[in-house]
C-alpha cells in the first residue's frame, strides 16, 4: 500500500495515481538485474508512492514546487527503456511520467529544426517528421519504447550516428524545469557559455526536461547498402578508422566479430514454432550447463577461429541524395578493397536494416530459460581500442559468454558494444547455496564489476550511450577525476533541495532502503 501523502487541493487537477498496478508498473526501468529479481520472486520492490502525469510545462512546475516544499523525491520518467537503473524510486518518491507532453510545437523548415515536447515517443515523432520531408536522424534500438526527453537525459545514440551524430549533436536548446520549480530555456552556443552540456546526460538529476529544439536533416532519398568481410576484427576496425578519418560518413557502420557475425548471418529473432516454446526446455538446460563454465565456452569459440565461424563482417549504410550516397559508397568500396576487405554484397546490410530493432526482443526467452543477458557499451580512441576490446572481453569472459560488435565510429575513436549471457557460475559459494537465482545475481554482479574495472584500466569510458543510472554510478569517480565533486556543485545550483532523482549518477551518501551497491558488494569467489 502506498504511503503517499495527500496532494494539496491546489494540485487536485493533476492526473495522478497511488493504485498498486501503477506503482508496480513504475517501479523500475529495463535494467536486466531487475529481471533477475523478478525471476527470484522479488516483484517491483521499488514501488514509488505516487505517479503523476502532467500535460504541460506549467503542471510540471506545480509538482516540482510541491516536491521541493515537501522534500519529496521526484523521478522523471520517459518510457522506462533505460538499462542502467536510472529509474529506481524510493518508497516515498513521486514518479513524473512525461508522456502526455507529446506535442510537436513547431517545425522550422528553413532551419531546419523542430520544437518538440519531451514526452513524445520515438517512432511517431520520426514518422511525423518524415511526412514533412525531414528526419531527426536518431534511431536508437529502443526507438519503439523511448521518448525524446529520455534520449536527451541519457545522452543517447542512434544507429545512424556516423552521419547525424549522437543526441547531443542535435540539441539546439532545451526547455526544462529546475529543482527550484523555475522554467529554464537553455541554448547551445558554439562560442559562449551554455548550460546544455550539463543538462544533456543529467538523467533527471538537475532538471526535468520538458521540451527541446532539435536540428533536423532532409529525409534521405536513397540508401546504399554494402557489407565487407575481414580476416579479423582488428583489420575491420582499422578499416573503419580509415573511412572516418578520410571524411566519409556512413550513417551506419557496424563491425561484428566472427561469432556475432555468424549469428547475424543465421538470422535475427526466431519466432516460436508453437505456443509456450519460450519456456525453459532442453536447449535452455544445455546452455545453463555450458554457461556454468564460461571460460571454457569462450575458449572453445575462440579456438574455432574464423575458418569455422567465418569472417568478421562490416555493415555499411550510406544515405542522402542519389549522387551523395552512391559516390560515398563507391569511395568506401575502393578504400576497403584496397585494405584487403572482401565485398559481400548488399544482402547482409539490407538484412541488418530489416531487423535493426529486433534485438531487444531476444532477452525474455533468455531469462525464461534460467539464464541472463545484458550489454555494455564502452568507447575510447582508436589507439586504445585494442586494449579496451581485449581487456573488457577477457574480464567478462571469466564470468559470462561474451561477443562484441563495434558501432558508432568517429574520426577519433569508436564504441564497442559487448553482449553477454551467463548463468549461475560454479564456485559462487554462499550465493550458490542460496539458490539458482541468487547465484545468477552473484555472477551478474561479478561480471559487471570486472567489465567496468577493465574499461577504466584500459582508459575507456564506462558508458557511450546507455548512461550511468545507478548501476555504473560507483565508477563515475574513476572515469572523470573531479567529476563527482563538480556534479555535486551543479546539483546544488540546479536542485538545491536535492529532490530530483536522488541516487542516480552519484550514489547517495545516506542509506537507501532500495539501493543495491555494486561497489560495496564482495566479489563472490574472489574471482572478479
Amino acid at each position, binding site marked *: 500500500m502506498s504511503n503517499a501523502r495527500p496532494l494539496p487541493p491546489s494540485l487536485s487537477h493533476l492526473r495522478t495515481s497511488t493504485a498498486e498496478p501503477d506503482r508496480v508498473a513504475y517501479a523500475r526501468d529495463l535494467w536486466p538485474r531487475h529481471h533477475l529479481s523478478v525471476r527470484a520472486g522479488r516483484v517491483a520492490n521499488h514501488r514509488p508512492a505516487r505517479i503523476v502525469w502532467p500535460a504541460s510545462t506549467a503542471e510540471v512546475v506545480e509538482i516540482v514546487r510541491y516536491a521541493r516544499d515537501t522534500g519529496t523525491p521526484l523521478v522523471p520518467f520517459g518510457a522506462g527503456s533505460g538499462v542502467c537503473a536510472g529509474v529506481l524510486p524510493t518508497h516515498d518518491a513521486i514518479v513524473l511520467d512525461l508522456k502526455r507532453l507529446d506535442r510537436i510545437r513547431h517545425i522550422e523548415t528553413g*532551419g*531546419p529544426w523542430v520544437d518538440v515536447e519531451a514526452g513524445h515517443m520515438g517512432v511517431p515523432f520520426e514518422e511525423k517528421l518524415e511526412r514533412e520531408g525531414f528526419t531527426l536522424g536518431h534511431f536508437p534500438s529502443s526507438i519503439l519504447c523511448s521518448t525524446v526527453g529520455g534520449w536527451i537525459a*541519457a*545522452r543517447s*545514440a542512434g544507429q545512424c*550516428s*556516423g*552521419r*547525424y551524430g*549522437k543526441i547531443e*549533436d542535435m540539441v*539546439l536548446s532545451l526547455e526544462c524545469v529546475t529543482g527550484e520549480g523555475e522554467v*529554464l*530555456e*537553455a*541554448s*547551445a*552556443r*558554439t*562560442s559562449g*557559455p551554455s*548550460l546544455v*552540456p*550539463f*543538462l*544533456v*546526460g543529467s538523467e533527471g538529476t*538537475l532538471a526535468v526536461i520538458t521540451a527541446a529544439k532539435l536540428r533536423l*536533416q532532409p529525409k534521405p532519398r536513397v540508401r546504399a547498402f554494402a557489407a565487407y568481410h575481414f580476416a579479423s576484427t582488428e583489420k575491420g576496425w582499422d578499416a573503419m578508422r580509415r573511412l572516418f*578519418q578520410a*571524411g566519409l*560518413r556512413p550513417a551506419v557502420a557496424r563491425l561484428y566479430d566472427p561469432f556475432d557475425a555468424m549469428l547475424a548471418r543465421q538470422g535475427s529473432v526466431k519466432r516460436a514454432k508453437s505456443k509456450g516454446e519460450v519456456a525453459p526446455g532442453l536447449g535452455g538446460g544445455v546452455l545453463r550447463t555450458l554457461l556454468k563454465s564460461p571460460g571454457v565456452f569462450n575458449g572453445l569459440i575462440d579456438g574455432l577461429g574464423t575458418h569455422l565461424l567465418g569472417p568478421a563482417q562490416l555493415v555499411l549504410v550510406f544515405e542522402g541524395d542519389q549522387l551523395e550516397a552512391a559516390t560515398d559508397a563507391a569511395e568506401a568500396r575502393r578504400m576497403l578493397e584496397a585494405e584487403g576487405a572482401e565485398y559481400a554484397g548488399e544482402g547482409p546490410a539490407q538484412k541488418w536494416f530489416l531487423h535493426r530493432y529486433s534485438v531487444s526482443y531476444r532477452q525474455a526467452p533468455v531469462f525464461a530459460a534460467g539464464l541472463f543477458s545484458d550489454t555494455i557499451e564502452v*568507447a*575510447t*580512441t582508436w*589507439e586504445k581500442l585494442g586494449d579496451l576490446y581485449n581487456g573488457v572481453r577477457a574480464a567478462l569472459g571469466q564470468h559470462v559468454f561474451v561477443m562484441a560488435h563495434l558501432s558508432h565510429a*568517429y*574520426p*577519433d*575513436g*569508436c564504441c564497442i558494444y559487448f553482449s553477454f549471457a551467463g548463468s549461475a557460475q560454479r564456485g559462487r559459494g554462499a550465493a550458490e547455496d542460496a539458490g539458482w537465482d541468487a547465484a545468477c545475481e552473484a555472477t551478474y554482479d561479478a561480471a559487471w564489476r570486472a567489465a567496468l574495472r577493465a574499461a577504466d584500466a584500459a582508459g575507456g*569510458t564506462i*558508458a*557511450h*550511450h*546507455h*548512461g*550511468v543510472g545507478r548501476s555504473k554510478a560507483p565508477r*563515475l569517480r574513476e*572515469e*572523470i*577525476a573531479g*567529476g563527482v*565533486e*563538480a*556534479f555535486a*556543485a*551543479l546539483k*546544488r*545550483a540546479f536542485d538545491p533541495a536535492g529532490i530530483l532523482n536522488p541516487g542516480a549518477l552519484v550514489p547517495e551518501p545516506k542509506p537507501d532502503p532500495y539501493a543495491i551497491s555494486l561497489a560495496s558488494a564482495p566479489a563472490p569467489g574472489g574471482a572478479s
Partner: protein
Amino acid sequence: MLCEVSADTPLAELEAFLGTQGCSLGVGAIEATVGQWIAEGAPGARDPFADPADHLLAGLRGVLHGGRTVEIRPCPRRAAGPDFAGLFFGQWKRFGDLTSVWLRIAALDAPATRRPMPLAWERNAKLNAGEQKLLGAIERELRK
C-alpha cells in the same frame, strides 16, 4: 588523430608544429594560447554542426576556481553524466583554467568535412536571465 597540448601553448606555435607533422587544426592565424582559445569557444574552428560526427575537444585537464582538478580522459563520445568539458569550453574562464587539452587534428590533405550539413540557427544567442542566474549559482557552488 589527437594531440595533447599544454594550455599555455600559443595556438600559432601549435599549428606550426602540426604543420611539420603533416597535420593541422584547420584554424587560421589567431593570437591566443590554446587554453584561452578553448575558453572562448574555439572561434574559427570548424563548425560542430557541420559535421556532427566530429568534435574538436576530446579530453582535458583543468583546475576549477575552488581548487579542484577535473580530468576528462580523451574519448570520442561518452554518456557518463553531464559533459564536464562544458565547465571550460566557451565559459571564458568563469569556472576555472585549463591545464592541458586533447584536440582532434586532421591530416593536411584530408578534408575534415566532405559535405557540411547546413543549419540556420543563431549559434551564440544572448544569455537570458535564467541562464545568467544559474551560471552565477554554479560559479558560487564550485568555489565552495
